[in-house]
């Protein structure tokens, strides 16, 4: 640089000396004889250009690693979920069996009946029953079969003619009928909801409707019209099989008692309010193995359930109960229930064994102390609760268990009573009912239909197969919705914070979550309920994992303000210099060039 500067004075001399007198018209203010020098102009522009070229490198060096997220795919999925809701396929079939094929004949027009049933199903669906998320009333097949034992009118591809013979069935014993129908193989080759209609059944008065543990129901009765049959069939299909037999006003579908990672921890607690009076203990291990394990097994596709238990002492309740002479016990009215759970003294604890986002459902057996025994829960209508228990949605359930005799143990000797197996059985029946209620299912065994009351058979596993199907469908739908909204929020968040670091792991989780969601959707459309429930659970847990990734949670991202604060003290003054210098040099060059051109023009004119 020094060289350039030492050269630079060579420029001006031609113009500095007083102009030779030979050319009188030369004016040094407006003209010049030499070409204007390019050196300074070149220099300033080089600096400017190198600055401009340097900026991309600078930006590159302060760039933050962001794993590319499939924003487009997320948008497609969320649009897809909104625009075309889930279409689970459902297959319904009705089989008409005469009680005695030889003597009686059924006079049914199957086509007419089918039309009637279809119109009734769509009518029910339009009323909003059975059309919520995860229902399958939009995409069903219906087939009717008339079985005289000789397969004359078989329209169903699932039912093998002649496999049901009404004479073999004893309709007074529901369990045996259920087993017999199951062994008859009504859902041959697929998940089919079937209703067996036995006409002129013996030994049955009126009409008897029973829904079994598997995927079938039966109607036994005599003397009915086509409309009545159609009404009943449509109701069983829509209200029971599709809608899970639930009633309106129960727990809403959004309150899924399943954690974001697809796990539930059932935490069973036995609370002894005052061990000075008596202490009770239980043999939980056996209950776990015999009663809970089958239930956990069948719920496998919906949630991964683990069980733990503890016994706590000195855990008084929060509210006061009042003595009721008539009922012979201390009563607690329903409006006091919100204050029953004493979170100061009930150290129910979260579980260490569970992951961070698992759902913990607390089930509490409360053994009252001697001064409030027996403790009874009173319904608003003044009656005493039969189960002596209540649930709290998304939290769990509480049951009050009163000892047989409410007299205190003698002071001297402490006996640790063990709850008898019979008592435990009762307690756990209540718990299973509460658990079903938390899932939004009915806990009773009766369903009140429009024409008559249906009895529902309970499974020893706690959940019947059609209920499990319903839960699978509902959870699939809910999980997919939840994962799409989570992914949508994530993509919004990521796009709104351009300087947030996004780890590769998040990108991977998002990708896998999308894959799982798509798999769940394709499985759902094929009718694989369990598989779709499992992959939808995966999609949800992966989406939540990505959203709650610790690196996103951390606030130490490198903000633009920070970047500006660090670089501006240098770049602001320097860029001023560089720009001004370039501008001045450019103006000067133009000016000098004009001078030179003027002189040239003069010279030409002169010559």
């Amino acid at each position: 640089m020094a060289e350039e500067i030492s050269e630079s004075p060579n420029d001006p001399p031609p113009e500095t000396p007083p102009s030779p007198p030979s050319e009188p018209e030369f004016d040094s203010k407006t003209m010049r004889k030499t070409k204007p020098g390019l050196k300074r102009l070149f220099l300033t522009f080089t600096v400017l250009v190198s600055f401009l070229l340097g900026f991309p490198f600078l930006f590159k060096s302060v760039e933050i690693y962001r794993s590319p997220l499939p924003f487009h795919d997320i948008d497609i999925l969320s649009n897809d979920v909104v625009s075309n809701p889930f279409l689970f396929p459902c297959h319904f079939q009705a089989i008409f069996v005469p009680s005695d094929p030889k003597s009686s004949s059924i006079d049914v027009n199957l086509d007419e009946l089918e039309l009637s049933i279809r119109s009734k199903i769509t009518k029910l669906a339009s009323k909003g029953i059975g059309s919520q998320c995860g229902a399958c009333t939009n995409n069903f097949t219906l087939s009717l079969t008339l079985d005289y034992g000789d397969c004359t009118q078989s329209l169903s591809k699932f039912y093998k003619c002649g496999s049901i013979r009404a004479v073999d069935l004893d309709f007074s014993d529901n369990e045996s009928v259920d087993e017999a129908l199951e062994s008859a193989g009504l859902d041959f080759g697929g998940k089919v909801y079937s209703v067996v209609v036995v006409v002129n059944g013996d030994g049955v008065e009126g009409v008897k409707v029973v829904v079994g543990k598997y995927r079938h129901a039966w109607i036994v009765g005599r003397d009915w019209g086509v409309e009545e049959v159609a009404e009943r069939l449509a109701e069983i299909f829509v209200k029971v099989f599709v809608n899970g037999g639930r009633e309106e006003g129960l727990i809403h579908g959004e309150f899924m008692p399943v954690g974001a990672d697809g796990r539930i921890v059932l935490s069973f607690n036995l609370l002894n309010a005052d061990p000075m009076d008596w202490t009770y203990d239980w043999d939980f291990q056996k209950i776990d193995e015999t009663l809970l394990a089958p239930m956990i097994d069948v719920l496998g596709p919906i949630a991964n359930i683990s069980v733990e238990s503890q016994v706590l002492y000195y855990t008084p309740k929060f509210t006061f109960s009042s003595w009721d002479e008539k009922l012979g016990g201390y009563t607690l009215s329903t409006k006091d229930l919100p204050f029953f759970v004493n979170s100061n003294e009930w150290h129910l604890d979260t579980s260490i064994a569970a992951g961070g986002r698992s759902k913990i459902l607390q089930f509490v057996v409360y053994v009252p102390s001697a001064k409030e025994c027996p403790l009874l829960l009173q319904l608003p209508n003044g009656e005493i609760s039969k189960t002596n228990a209540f649930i709290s949605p998304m939290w769990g359930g509480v049951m009050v268990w009163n000892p047989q005799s409410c007299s205190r143990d003698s002071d001297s000797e402490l006996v640790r009573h063990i709850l008898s197996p019979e008592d435990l059985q009762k307690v756990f029946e209540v718990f299973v009912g509460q658990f079903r209620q938390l899932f939004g299912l009915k806990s009773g065994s009766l369903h009140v239909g429009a024409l008559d009351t249906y009895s529902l058979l309970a499974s020893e596993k706690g959940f019947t197969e059609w209920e499990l199907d319903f839960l699978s469908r509902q959870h699939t739908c809910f999980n997919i919705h939840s994962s799409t909204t989570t992914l949508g929020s994530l993509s919004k968040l990521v796009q709104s914070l351009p300087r947030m670091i996004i780890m590769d792991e998040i990108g991977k989780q998002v990708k896998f979550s999308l894959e799982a969601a798509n798999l769940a959707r394709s499985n759902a459309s094929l009718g694989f309920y369990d598989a779709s429930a499992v992959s939808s659970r995966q999609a949800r847990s992966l989406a939540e994992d990505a959203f709650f990734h610790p690196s996103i949670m951390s606030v130490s991202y490198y903000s633009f303000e920070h970047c500006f604060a660090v670089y501006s003290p240098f770049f602001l003054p320097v860029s001023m210099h560089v720009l001004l210098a370039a501008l001045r040099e450019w103006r000067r060059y133009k000016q000098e060039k004009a001078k030179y051109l003027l002189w040239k023009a003069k010279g030409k004119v002169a010559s």
Partner: protein
Amino acid sequence: MELPSRWVFLLFLLLSSAKAFGSEVDKEEFQEELLLKPLPDRKVLAHFHFETRAPPCNSNGLHHHHLFPKSISQMVEKFRVKEMELSFTQGRWNYERWGGFDTMSSNNAKPPGVELWAVFDVPKEQVDASWKNLTHTLSGIFCASINFLESSSMYSAPDWSFRQASGSLRYGMLPREAVCTENLTPWLKLLPCRDKAGISSLMDRPSIYTSLYYSQRLHLTSIASDLEGLNSGIVLEQTLTVVLHPSSQRTGLTHFSQSYLQPSWSLSSIFGRKVNGRCVLAKSSKVYLQLERGLVSQLKKSENYGADYIASEGYDGEANFELSVNPDRVIKEENSRNGISSSLLYEFSVDKYSNSKPFDLGLTWKFPVIWSCQQAPLHASRFLMGSGNERGAIAILLKSTDLNDSSLVANSAMDGCELRVNIFQVVPWYIRVYYHSLQLFVDDQLKAVGAFVEKIHVMPSKDKISPGMMEMVLKLPCGVKSAALTLDFDKGFLHIDEYPPDANQGFDIPSASIGFPDFHTSMLFPSNESERKSPMLSKFQESSPVLLYTEVLLVPLTTPDFSMPYNVITITCTVFALYFGSLLNVLRQRVGEKERLLKSKAAAKTGRLSDLLSRLSAKLRGRSQEPMQSASESSPLINSKLALKVLLMAALAVAWQYYFG
């Protein structure tokens, strides 16, 4: 639901299992105990001991507990903890006055703050991960910042000096953790009765937190019953040790001056509460009053009991003191060494007390007694040397207590009279210790280190990765009066965001532990006590090496100005911008043209002021004012001057780069 057959089967199962295991079916057990002990300096030691046992369960690893805390068993199961100890301590155990040579001090005297060590039953490469998870879980359970022990610069893995564990042991300390009720409440939550009933109801927060020493400890051991270690029984031992200062009660005795008399106390006077019966869930609930060896021998001397002391059992009216409650039993320690009298334990069972008849043990002194505690063979203290913010030295001073000389000699005579001392010290990485500078002074004489060190293991610190650790076994002659170890260190610099919020307070170096492997403390009780064995007494019977902790050191480090980075950025950038701008200006300057312009201006105006100015400037340049024609000649001169300026600038820039780049 179908039940009868299932339940019959279940009942059968239950019966059969009961038959198979018979009476040896272990049940979960809980025991509570309290030990009270008058201390020589008019204080009272209260030591609560709770033990909960969970037997190994017979089925597939599922734990359903009846008494045992769920959170602890889940933690043990999840992280495969073999053994673990966590202590929260406030205050420092006074080894001279409260004893340094008994089971109480070597087990329950803990360094201030939090100390955590754990042994894991996992492959070696997973130990660190388990440790990290464990610290987070514990900090959640105990509402403490134990999770700071997660970072690898906070914990160490001692090989042999602390405890034999073959690589699966991790050890960490947080000397500055404040201990308060929020740590005690979760600790009490692990007890089945919490502080609702039983001995733990004595824990009145104001009185125990105003104590001179408070140490809350949780120790758990899991006993693997099979090879995989899946089904394990757990023993959870919770202790709370407090040293209380009883406000002296006025007694009717006036013929002894009150100031000589030990203060009389009762449970209600030191805790402000009484025991309203036992915790009904406890298998046993007992209170002990211990009179230590020194005290017993003093009592013997003064009362001249002689041989009939045991017969009279020492609590009748003739004795030096009076108990408000008659003890259920007196346990006399069986002493293996003769010449020293054995300590006495008065046992009180809380079972027979109730709400209407609370248990309130009181002790009233009748005659003044002065006694002293048994001391550890050496008294240890640690201090800092040097000044300034750059370097310093750590010194560990071991001084002979010369109280136990006779026993010392007797104990180590067979070893050729050597006293072995275990030193284990962890130093954070920002205290860069030069281990080669280790110097050893024995009896104030500088000695070669090699002559006295039996075994040494040093793990130098790695910056921001691991702390420095020193394990050492010293072999000192047993007649030694004093021994001192010094280590030089440099203070490191921390990154700006590694400073704690109160950086000016200084940094703590955790306590060093000094062990005496040749000395074991244990109390032997008559063997017929074994059937009624209490967990605390069996703990006392276990022989444990004498261990003591030194003080925590406070090292001030240079505290930076925390706005410094931005200041540096701003000033550097301004200087760079100035340099760059002026360089650019110089590059595009046309000196000749400027002068011509100036001249022409002067010619045009010839104002007095401008003339003056030009004259002044010429003078400043050190040249006589030349008329216009000299411009062409002067230009090379200016030129070289300009070059000089630019060179100077460049040199400045280079120098700047060199020193600050």
